[in-house]
């Protein structure tokens, strides 16, 4: 357990040291929201029907790019290979990376929620919505982190990452958008969508944690 | 016979795609087999040589360009 804490701490430190990558992701997310605002003319009328989609596509794209970027820095430094050679259990290594990515992404998403609340005059900072964002993020961060570690040495990987990750994440997108919409009063119940989100989060985290050791075996 | 043009289109698309796929696959397989033969011959030749090509000091570049042949069909797909 203390090893886990140490690894998480290591990854958080690494994320801080490579914060340009995460700041770029934050900037990307902000620009994406603004781009959507112009593209869909979100300045006028009731934008709530479009907001869940705007938010979650932004989160997913930012997450996919950020995961690839942050891992690339670690590979370039050579520290990742060193870590794999150490006696630390690969599963612990992965969970450490996962938790660090999760925290970084939650910070980015929270910032976007604040931004959208101000821009569109919609109350987005409710506990229910924050809970949906938390579970949804857990759902996608495990697969994007796994795919990022797998794509380490392939050329053209920055474009390939979304192509690989997004189709797998469609159930998550559906559940998250619908649940967010329901919590904003756009549709009947959050029930089935929360179920979908939790099932997906559990499945994706389990699959990623189980498959990571095989992925990095030498 | 209503909607028969759609039926025709559907079957036509299927058969056309199938044939294009088969022809491209056969072409690729043939070119790969030719390449395998060619490479195996080269290997047999170089095994016949008494010693591997040696490089004299200072002539590394000419030896390197001498042993490089015009490149084979590039794609592996």
């Amino acid at each position, binding site marked *: 357990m203390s090893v886990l804490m140490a690894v998480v701490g290591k990854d958080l430190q690494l994320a801080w040291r490579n914060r340009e990558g995460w700041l770029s992701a934050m900037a990307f997310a902000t620009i994406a929201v603004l781009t959507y605002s112009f593209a869909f003319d979100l300045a006028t009328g009731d934008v709530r029907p479009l907001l869940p989609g705007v938010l979650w596509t932004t989160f997913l794209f930012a997450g996919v790019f950020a995961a690839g970027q942050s891992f690339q820095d670690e590979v370039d430094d050579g520290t990742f290979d060193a870590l794999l050679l150490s006696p630390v259990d690969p599963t612990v290594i992965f969970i450490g990376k996962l938790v660090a990515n999760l925290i970084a992404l939650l910070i980015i998403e929270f910032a976007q929620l604040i931004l959208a609340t101000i821009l569109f005059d919609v109350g987005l900072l409710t506990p229910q919505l924050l809970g949906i964002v938390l579970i949804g993020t857990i759902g996608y961060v495990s697969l994007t982190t796994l795919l990022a570690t797998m794509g380490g040495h392939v050329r053209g990987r920055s474009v390939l990452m979304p192509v690989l990750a997004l189709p797998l994440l469609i*159930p998550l997108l559906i559940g998250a958008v619908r649940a967010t919409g329901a919590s904003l009063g756009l549709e009947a119940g959050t029930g089935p969508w929360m179920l979908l989100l939790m099932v997906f989060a559990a499945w994706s985290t389990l699959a990623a944690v189980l498959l990571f050791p095989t992925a990095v075996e030498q | 016979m209503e909607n028969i043009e759609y039926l025709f289109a*559907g079957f036509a698309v299927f058969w056309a795609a199938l044939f294009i796929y088969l022809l491209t696959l056969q072409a690729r397989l043939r070119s790969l087999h030719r390449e395998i033969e060619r490479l*195996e011959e080269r290997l047999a030749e170089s095994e016949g040589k008494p010693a591997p090509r040696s490089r004299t000091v200072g002539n590394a570049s000419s030896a390197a360009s001498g042993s490089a042949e015009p490149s084979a069909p590039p794609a592996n797909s």
Partner: protein
Amino acid sequence: MNALAILLARVYEWRWVVLPPVAGVAMMAMIVGALVAAPREIIEGEVQRLMYLHVPSAVTMYAAFGFTAFASVMFLWKRDMRWDAAARGSAVVGVFLCGMVLATGAIWGKPIWGVYWSWDARLTTTLILFLIYSAYLLARSVAGPLDEQAARFAAIFAIIGVADIPIIQMSVRWWRTLHPQPIVFQTNPALPGEMLIVLLIGFIAIFALATWLISLQTDTERAAQRVSALRAEVDHREIA
């Protein structure tokens, strides 16, 4: 090698003798059945005959992707690149069949629904599958045929993809139904006997065709691996 392995090896050797004629005959039988022998469907007209292509292709496509996942598991277990070739081979055929399902579905849909694409839950799931396994092939082909690390990653991706299928189906169905829907596509729940027979022939035909194609494609991948290995050896000999 035990008796089963020897038997399988024997069967495998005979595949070029057996598969093309079986596939050919079955496909002819399916065409005759679909276009001539099967009764005409009253509501939809002649275009309904596309069912005999569309449905068997869909089922065989799932089998192909399932085989890709199986081959991927075998590859991760045995670390034998031949399983990588088999996984890629059946993925190519699976993507091909997937494209055929989408194309025949759209062509069938146009006169029936009025549009080529209606976001019907099953076709949408098929589209997602098409994207996932196209991405698999793309990512795998960016690396060389003998790149074991890339093969390992591709195998893991294929396994995740196949495991995701039921979740995708469930979520897309909920997405379409827990939401008011303008168009609902009804099929006759009970097909008359003659149609079922032709459909069965269709299954056999497409399945035989797919088996043959997968063998061809896998052999092609193996040939590409051999070329890669030979090139490496030639370079090694001539530079050494």
